């Protein structure tokens, strides 16, 4: 399965909130949909699920118009939503029924997921009596109860302790391994880096970066170096480098333990190493710089941060 979102535009009244969103995702390869609060992620997801109709653009599945009701979709919204006063399994079965699953099958699958997420004993308890973390797990169980072809997880890790986060990580990995089409939206970049091969960053309703994460990291780190010294703290080292080697490299950032440098030419690294050996700088570590997703995100979407 290959889902393509093409040039989606969406307006509410006179305000256009999505200005031509495009990305694509294939089954078995999770897409990280990133963006700051209010960037347009949730609106994009709602357009994708036909809750909102776009003013322009289209959503395709394997080249044909995507009709959400033809697929089993598991959606975990950022705004967690279930019925606090209803029993856990009862409401899971109801939502599974709405997504086309029979009652008996839904009960069986629901119980399995509750057991898998270690909350099986709460099946007949009212949701409001569960802790926040367990309610979060119920929400995940309802997302997966109908064995969805497409899984959309919006901030799935918020509210989970490390143990529960590990359980969820295992589940997400398993679903990706089962060749599901996974769209993963989160502000916790570590999780995105862990699961997603592809990313799309939305900022102010526009895609500002889109593609393979490794490739993006590689391109973002091209011609950049990291450098630390035994005899200089990073701030002092930055001054020294600027003073002595300005024609070779430029200090881009001073980190706690090292500097990020940008070469002035393609073989700057080689020239810098040679120059350093002739200087008083006792090099502790030098290497190619590969930015974290967090760095990339801040660079692309942190314009007003």
């Amino acid at each position, binding site marked *: 399965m290959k889902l393509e979102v093409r040039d989606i535009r969406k307006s509410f009244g006179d305000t256009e909130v999505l200005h031509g969103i495009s990305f694509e995702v294939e089954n078995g390869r999770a897409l990280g949909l990133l963006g700051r609060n209010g960037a347009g992620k949730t609106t994009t997801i709602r357009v994708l699920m036909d*809750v*909102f109709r776009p003013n322009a653009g289209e959503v395709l599945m394997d080249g044909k118009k995507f009709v959400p009701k033809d697929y089993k979709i598991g*959606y975990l919204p950022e705004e967690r*939503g*279930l019925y606090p006063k209803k029993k856990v399994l009862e409401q899971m079965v*109801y939502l599974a029924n*709405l997504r086309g699953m029979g009652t008996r099958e839904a009960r069986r699958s629901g119980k399995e997921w509750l057991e898998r997420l270690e909350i099986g004993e709460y099946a007949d308890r009212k949701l409001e009596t569960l802790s926040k973390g367990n309610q979060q797990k119920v929400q995940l169980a309802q997302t997966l109860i109908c064995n969805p072809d497409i899984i959309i997880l919006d901030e799935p890790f918020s509210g989970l302790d490390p143990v529960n986060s590990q359980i969820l990580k295992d589940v997400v990995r398993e679903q990706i391994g089962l060749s599901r089409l996974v769209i993963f939206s989160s502000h916790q970049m570590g999780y995105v880096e862990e699961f997603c091969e592809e990313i799309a960053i939305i900022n102010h309703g526009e895609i500002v970066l889109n593609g393979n994460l490794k490739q993006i990291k590689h391109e973002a780190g091209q011609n950049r170096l990291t450098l630390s010294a035994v005899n200089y703290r990073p701030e002092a080292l930055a001054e020294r480098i600027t003073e002595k080697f300005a024609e070779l490299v430029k200090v881009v950032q001073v980190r706690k333990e090292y500097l990020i440098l940008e070469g002035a030419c393609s073989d700057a690294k080689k020239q810098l190493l040679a120059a350093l050996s002739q200087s008083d700088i006792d090099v502790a570590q030098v290497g190619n710089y590969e930015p974290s997703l967090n760095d990339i995100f801040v660079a692309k979407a942190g314009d007003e941060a």
Partner: protein
Amino acid sequence: MRQFGIVWKHEFLGYVKTKSFIGISLGFALLFAVLLSLPSFIDLSGLIPGLKRGEVSEGYQAGEEALAPLSGPAASVAVNGYEGTICLWDAEEIVGEESVKQIFPAAQIRKVSSEEELTDLVEDSGESVCGFAVYSPTNYRYYVKNRSFSDSVGESFDELLGYLFRQSEFARIHADGSVVEAIYGTPMESETVVLGKDSVQNFLYTYLLIFVLYFMVLIYGASVAVSIAQEKSNRAMEVLVTSTSSNSLIFGKVLAGTAASFLQTGIIIGAALAAYRFNREAWNGMLDFVLQIPAPVLLTFAVFGVLGYILYAFCYGVLGALVSKTEDVSRTSGPLQFLFIISFLLTMFNLQNSDGVLMKVLSFIPFTSPNAMFARVAMGSVAVWEVALSLALLLGTILVTAVGGAKIYRMGTLMYGNPIKLSRALKMSREKNQ
């Protein structure tokens, strides 16, 4: 359609499985069944005049009281059962203590010597003392400390004085007063055969059924709005709208609320009607005017009641989608409640003039026709085409409201924050691509 069925079932069971629904439905049904069965097991004729076991009359004749087989005033004036004290200042002996005693046999008669004494006694002695100051055969003053709604002492005294005045006038013109009184008092033997509708008899159950619809719309209609607002408030809507169509949701909710409210009403009214039917003989037919509801009237109530309820429930559903918190529901739904209350009051005030112009107009306006047309069918004369036209207008309005409501619902369900104004919602729902 399948998803609509799932939503409907979920919502319907959500209503009928609650303890309050079961408790109220069965509690009231049982209460009516027991109360209406009592005369079959216990002799209540002492408590309820008109109950005479073993005899079925064609109907209880309200207000019928036998004249006392006495001569004098009691032969013409109905006896009053007042048990307090009647103070009488009658300096000219126009009425006389004996005459008063005949009409008020259970009362204590106390003659006083002045009007001041009378007023002091009435003012100081409390509720069970009243008094009359008689100035002439046609002029008196009635003193009472606190006049109750059911006070009939003054009325009986008025009749007595009138009787005495007539007697004295008959004597003055040398006519035999007892003969004239007998002529005037001769009861007419008559029987009323109603070939069409008996508004007098239909009045009470029409009144009650309109009240029933009033409570159903206000209580259950509001619960539809609350249910939708709750789903927005607890964000269940986020999952719901991505699991099924908004049409299935709003139609399922509204029609489930309709079914649940009519089920509950049906259980309670059905229990009362069935219990009365079984025990009608023991009741001597005296509750026919409330519980012997003709099938066509019940059918009209069912049709216009259900459709009227659905119309208002869709409106409530839309209003529920416009707010994000349940506490905002009552504020937002105020104008709709006001509209229904106006419809209710206009119908109630014109119930005895059900063929009037106003009722005719109201019976064609969809937001008032559920009450007004039902009242006209139950109590007035309505042509079949009028019912059909009213029904068509009501159905058409429901359709437009449902389609428009589903659009607004779809747009409103995922908009959080302050309540959305209906005018803005209507404008947005008309925009393409919402």
